[in-house]
Structure formats: C-alpha cells, structure tokens
C-alpha cells in the first residue's frame, strides 16, 4: 500500500501540472522547485497542454511485478510542446504504427494495481495518437 506516494502526485498524474520559472520562463515537468535552466527558485505552477510528440519508444515484454498483467505495452519519451520531456506509456494505438515525431496527446488511464485486489488502482497520464481537429 503506497497511497500517500500516489496521492501527493495527483496534480501531476491527472493534470500534468508542472512549473514555470518566474526568472527565465523555462517550463518544468516534473516539478522540482529549482529551475534546471537558470538555477533560480521556480515554484509557480503551470498546467501543460498535454500535446507533444514521440521522441523515442519501445515495447516492454518482460514487465516488472505489478505491470506484468498489462504486458506487452509501449513506453515512450514524449517531448511536450512547451519544451520538457517526460516518460509515459502510449495507449489507444489499435493497429496504428508508431514513429519518432508522431504527434500525441495526454489522456488519463489506469496505470497499475497497487498490490492485491484490495490495493489502490493508480491512475495517471498516458499518451495517445493526437486526434484530428474536426
């Protein structure tokens, strides 16, 4: 049971909330309170658009305990439109081939079961191929 560990990250997991540096305007995700660009304090919250593109991707067949029920799954590094990169699974792919540079967008999905059938279900961000604007 790791409820507090997941609960305190709810803004990041559900809303992709990071930070913006008030000194150099650098966008930061995951939040770290110290700007990796200029080194100054950066605690101002910033909600990312959730739009980005695939920087790299791969498929996991041999999954860690807690993820093996979902294997195989696709893990990617996504470059967000605002600059930073993050790690996330790709989802809703159907038969669509993935490629580096493919536009993707954030969705909320079940990430794993924490422990047995009574364990908390962890939800959070994954990315799917970006839907065309009608």
């Amino acid at each position: 049971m790791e409820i507090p560990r997941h609960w305190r990250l709810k803004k990041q997991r559900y809303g992709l909330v990071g930070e913006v540096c008030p000194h150099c305007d650098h966008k930061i995700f995951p939040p770290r309170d110290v700007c990796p660009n200029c080194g100054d304090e950066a605690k101002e919250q910033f909600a990312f658009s959730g739009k980005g593109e695939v920087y790299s991707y791969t498929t996991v067949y041999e999954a860690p305990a807690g993820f093996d029920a979902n294997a195989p799954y696709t893990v990617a590094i996504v470059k967000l439109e605002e600059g930073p990169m993050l790690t996330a699974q790709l989802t809703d792919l159907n038969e669509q081939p993935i490629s580096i540079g493919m536009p993707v967008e954030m969705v909320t999905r079940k990430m794993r079961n924490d422990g047995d059938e009574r364990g908390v279900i962890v939800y959070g961000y994954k990315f799917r191929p970006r839907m065309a604007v009608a």
Partner: protein
Amino acid sequence: MTDVVIAGIGQTPVGEHWEISLRDLAVDAIRDALKDSGGLKPQALFVGNMLAPNLSNQAHLGALIADFAGLTGIEAITLEASGASGGAALRQGYLSIASGMVDVALVIGVEKFTDKIGSDVEEATATESDADFESIHGMTIGAQAALLMKRYMHENNVPENGFAGFALTAHANGVANKNAAFRKAIKAETYAKSEMVSDPLKIFDMAPHLDGAAALVLTRRELIPANGQSQPVKIAGSAASSDTLALHDRKDMLFFDTAQISAGKAMKQAGIVLNQINFFEYHDIFNIYAALQLEAVGFAIKGKGWKLAEDGSIGLSGRIPCATMGGMKARGFAGGASGVYQAVEAVIQLRGQAGANQIADATYGLIQSLGGPASTAVSHILQKLG
C-alpha cells in the same frame, strides 16, 4: 602523494550460484584477494552492492560481510550507486588510503541476482530509475536502453545489426576467461537472429544478470610486505560524476556527460592523454551504453561509437581494446560487483597474466562503472608500475 596501489585481487566465477549465498560469495572473493596480497590486514571494508535489500532482503552488508569474513571490529560500510556501486566502493577505498587515514582497505563488490527471478528482478532493477516519474509508467532498465538505442539509430542512420560488433567482441574475449559466465564465441548470424527484448534491443544487446563477487586489497606502495604482491598496480586516477536520474530530464540523452567528466578528471590526475590508454573496460550492460561511452570518453565522435565495434577497433589487437576479458556481456553483469570485476580484470592485464587475451605492452587501463544510463559514472586509470 605516495602511490595508492592494488596489492591483491580475488574473484568468483560469475553465474547462477543457486547453492552459494550472498555472504559466501563475498567471503570467497575476499579470501582470494587477501591471499594474493601476501596477508595484508585490512582496517576498513567498502562493499559495493546494488540491490541486496530488494533481491535478498538483506541490508547492512558492511557488518554482515566483515563478520563472516572474520574481520569483525574493522570499519565496514556499503556504497550504493546502482550499477556503479562497485566503482563507487573502489573510489571510497582509494580515498581512504590516499587520505592517509587508512593503511589497508578491502573493496568488495557482490551481487546475488538469482535470489529472485523474472518480474521480481525487473521490479528490483527498475528501482534504479525515478520511482515517481519513470518506473511508475512501467519503465524497465531494458526499456531505457531500448529508448536510447532507437533514438541513436534514428539520428545516426545505424543499420539493423549495427551493434553486433559489441556482442561478438565480448563473447570472443570471454572464451579464455575462466570466471566468465559464457565462454563461447558467437557468430554474426546468431546476433541477427536473437530474440527481441524491447525493440530494437535484442537479447545479445544486453548483459545477463548473474551472481558474483570480486575483491581488491588497497594500500600504499611502501606498505606491501616482503612476501606480498610483486606486481602492484597503481591507481593513477580516480573520479566520479552524477547526472539527472531520469533519462527524460537530460539536455541531450545521447551524450553521457558523466562518462566524459569522470574519465577526463581521472586522465588529468594520471597526467595522461587519450592515446596513452591501452585498453578500456566499459560498462557494457547494454551495447548502446558501450557506444555512448566510447563517444563520451573521446575514442569516437558523437554518433560514431558503434563504428568502432563494426570495424574491429575494440578487438584485442585493435586501436582501443574493450571488454578484454569478456566484459559484462560474456563475463556477466553481477550488479554492484561489476565495477570491481573491471578492476580485477584490468590488474590481470597490467600484470601480464591475461593469457590468450593479453594486450601487448599494457601500461594504462581505463575502467568505467555506470549507474543507470550514466546517471552516475566512476572512472579509474590503473597503471602498471615499472
């Protein structure tokens, strides 16, 4: 400053040691190293270990190993820096002797992967990445390497089997190493047909996670007893560096900054330049890491490290021989012991005892131990004394 030397080495074979416990592996290597040193009496023990709390439900290895090695009373602690734990333990041992505070230090690297199997091992090794922002997404260490490899191949137009040379070289060199887990050379077709682990990473692009222990006795040169080691090897340079834990936080994930920084500092301390290094024991837990280390250290320009494996430059008679005793691919990846195995193997080269794998006129060896995707790098220059 007086020379800090490696005055004794010991190692166990790397493999699936179902019948041998973590502590017994460590004690075997320690006894070998102390015997090789001519009976030096250690005052401090530095243990390099990566995952014993997860794999064997065992923490506090300093006291445990000192106890079972018959060394109770001495200072004994564990150093953990993921896969670089062995390199980190060696550096602490070096610092303790160089400072003058310790006369004889014992460095032991030990790992016992086979106490767990399958998804439990994946879960344990995944703890080396960012728990909140990487491993919670199902990231594994193999997936990290695959992500790097995919992007590297994309940016540098590497053909499908472009990394085969790393595996072929390592397995060829493992044949004559009696402590290597795999002692059979492989063919290019074997690599090409091997199982896909995480596209584009094949089974022959990664090292097997196995059990093993390796040990070193460190002292100052003048303290070697008359009946002691006649061929001490000098630690001429020692440096460590850290980078972002998460891959996605790197400014350029295809350049291993820590490998460059630590190797550069170690070379500067040793007073040597790149072309004086006779061989390089890189951290080839994944072939892509080996390529990125060759680039970061300066043996190849960015994006061309893989070519050194393809054109034979890393072979025993090549421009910069690598993984000379089989590396992690063929000897096996024994976690926190890996950095100590590198040192043991480099000492064997510098003593001229490497048999069929001997590098001619070896004077300087560079060994580099990585934690994760070079989130930590520890580099040492070992030197044959004239």
